[in-house]
């Protein structure tokens, strides 16, 4: 040991004055100045400390001095050091003991320690020092350049380590910020989704997500509330299966349009409910082709549809009323036409022939005179009949006809009895095949209709054969068709519709007397009782008139 060498270092820096800045991040630090690290010098001899200090000043770092191991440990508790220069031989706690205590503290267990020792003790001390964790040795008397460069290495190492630590800290902070942000976002998203789910759940509209095959993947509770099917039932089959068969093709077409790239579609259709009734749904659907999904918003529009149907049926009723009024109007026209035409003709005859009678046969009523007189009579008769029929017809157009269940067989039997004289005279046969049939009709009107049809059948007989008339009934859906068939002269097809019009005739009244009102009365009567009338006929072979009335 060479104490003399050690004495080279005299005064010590007061340890309390040593700068304690560890991070070098203080804002007042000169930007040009690098961060300064701390170097701890431990020696019991002030001269040696001074000498070391002088050497290390060139490194331009903070140098802290300690005059004993204890003082060194105190500094180490407060301050982080880049490197410790530790005198081996000190009174009390020597360098080795100090080093071992330093190493025991976790904060300092890796702080580099350079032992400073005299040459003569070196060999023994070097091995012990290394075993205690020394990183290097400096032999005194020291060579300033060697000391400086060795310490400089540790200063640099410490600086780098600090830099890495700082970077790691920055990274950690960045990561923490990013993580916090993600967390916040996740929480926000969750909250949004919860809100959205609330919309989904609370919506009065039916919301659903379906795949491109029409299967529902997700539904809100409104579906079950509206249709009665559970969510699982609705998911178990493709949507079109639930749609009314009449609306299904339209729905499938809409789905194809969505699959083919339509942006949105609107569709109205009837959807089956659990109780097998149907509700009208109005659908708005939008496809997400990338996910092969269709988002569906459906609304129960049943009430609207019912209202629309009501309006439609009211409109139809209105149209029908207008049509009825138009019909009545045109009949009134026909009526006034007949007053100006048909009713004036017989009047004219009466007048004309009366005139002729007076003018030509006034003094002697011979055969011709009698004939003229006869004509006046027949004209008067005709006019009477015409007026009567017209009155019947106009009454039928206006009167309320109260319907009841009428037994057809009774009516036809009575009619045949009434007409028996006429039937006998014409050598005719009238058959009835209407057993047990009841119709809903106004009895008087039905009697008149049957009478007109049977009388016509007898009247328009073929000159070469006696008339055979058959009254038959044919049951139809909710109606009975009564046929009056004859073997008479028949009617050419082009006239079949014309003959039901008021005052339409195919023959002169000479050939087949009549007023031209009978069949118009038949059709009007049938229509007023909720039925209809028509004819099928072959000219020269016979006619088949029919009246269809509601079944009783």
């Amino acid at each position: 040991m060479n104490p003399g060498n050690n004495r080279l270092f005299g005064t010590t820096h007061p340890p309390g004055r040593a700068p304690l800045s560890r991070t070098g991040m203080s804002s007042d630090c000169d930007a040009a100045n690098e961060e300064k690290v701390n170097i701890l010098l431990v020696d019991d001899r002030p001269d040696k400390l001074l000498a070391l200090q002088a050497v290390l000043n060139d490194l331009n770092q903070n140098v802290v001095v300690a005059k004993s191991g204890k003082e060194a440990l105190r500094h180490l508790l407060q301050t982080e050091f880049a490197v410790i220069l530790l005198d081996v031989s000190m009174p009390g706690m020597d360098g080795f003991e100090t080093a071992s205590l330093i190493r025991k503290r976790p904060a300092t267990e890796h702080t580099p320690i350079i032992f400073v020792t005299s040459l003569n003790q070196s060999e023994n001390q070097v091995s012990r020092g290394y075993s205690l964790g020394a990183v290097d040795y400096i032999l005194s008397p020291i060579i300033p350049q060697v000391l400086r460069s060795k310490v400089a290495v540790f200063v640099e190492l410490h600086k780098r380590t600090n830099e890495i630590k700082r970077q790691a800290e920055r990274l950690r902070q960045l990561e923490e910020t990013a993580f916090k942000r993600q967390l916040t976002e996740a929480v926000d998203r969750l909250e949004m989704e919860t809100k959205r789910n609330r919309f989904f759940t609370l919506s009065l509209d039916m919301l659903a997500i379906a795949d491109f095959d029409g299967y529902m993947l997700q539904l809100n509770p409104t579906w079950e509330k509206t249709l009665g099917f559970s969510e699982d039932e609705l998911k178990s089959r493709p949507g079109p299966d639930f749609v009314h068969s009449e609306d299904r093709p339209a729905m499938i077409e809409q789905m194809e349009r969505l699959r083919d790239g339509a942006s949105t579609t609107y569709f109205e259709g009837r959807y089956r409910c659990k109780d097998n009734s149907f509700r009208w749904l109005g659908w708005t659907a939008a496809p997400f082709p990338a996910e092969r999904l269709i988002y569906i918003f459906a609304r129960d529009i049943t009430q609207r549809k019912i209202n629309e149907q009501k309006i439609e049926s009211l409109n139809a009723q209105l149209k029908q009323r207008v049509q009825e009024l138009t019909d009545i109007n045109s009949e009134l026209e026909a009526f006034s036409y007949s007053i100006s035409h048909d009713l004036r003709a017989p009047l004219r005859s009466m007048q004309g022939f009366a005139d002729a009678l007076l003018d030509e046969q006034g003094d002697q009523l011979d055969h011709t005179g009698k004939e003229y007189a006869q004509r006046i009579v027949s004209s008067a008769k005709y006019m009477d009949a015409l007026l009567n029929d017209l009155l019947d017809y106009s009454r039928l157009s206006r009167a309320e006809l109260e319907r009841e269940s009428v037994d057809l067989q009774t009516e036809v039997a009575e009619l045949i009895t009434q007409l028996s004289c006429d039937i006998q005279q014409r050598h005719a046969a009238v058959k009835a095949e209407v057993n047990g049939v009841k119709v809903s009709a106004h009895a008087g009107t039905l009697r008149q209709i049957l009478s007109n049809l049977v009388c016509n059948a007898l009247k328009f007989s073929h000159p070469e054969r006696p008339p055979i008339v058959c009254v038959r009934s044919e049951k139809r859906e909710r109606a009975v068709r009564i046929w009056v068939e004859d073997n008479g002269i028949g009617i050419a097809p082009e006239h079949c519709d014309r003959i039901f019009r008021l005052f339409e005739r195919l023959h002169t009244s000479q050939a087949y007397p009549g007023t031209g009102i009978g069949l118009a009365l038949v059709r009007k009567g049938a229509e007023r009782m909720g039925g209809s009338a028509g004819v099928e006929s072959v000219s020269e072979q016979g006619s088949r008139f029919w009246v269809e009335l509601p079944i009783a």
Partner: protein
Amino acid sequence: MGNNALTILHVEDDPNDVLLIARAFRKVEVAARIQVVNDGEQALHYLSGSNSFSDRENFPLPSLVLLDLKLPRKSGIEVLEWIRSRPGLKRIPVVMLTSSKQAVDINRAYDLGVNAYLVKPVNFDGLVDMVKTLDAFWLRSNERPGATRD
């Protein structure tokens, strides 16, 4: 019948009117032969010389057609329309002789080219007067269309 061999076709379904008008013609001593048919279809057959009217000696083309409006099978309006559409018949004077005073009938008849529209009077004397006028105007004064076509 020489120069007086004029023919009037009377289309009328009411036999009483046929008789009364024939009597009126007799009273006025109209120098024309009256042919009567009872419905629209018969009128067409007569004018085209078909069916039972093919003998033009007995059923010559008329110099005047008296046409009722309301007729069985084919109305007077339909007959008029048909006459005006036939090249050989379209210039034959047609006079409506009917009971209808309805404007719709009158206008329709004029639209289709009727030459006159007369309403049958209820009074027989009125009818006689009307036939007198008919005779004076259509058979005596009026220049009839030529026999050549178009």
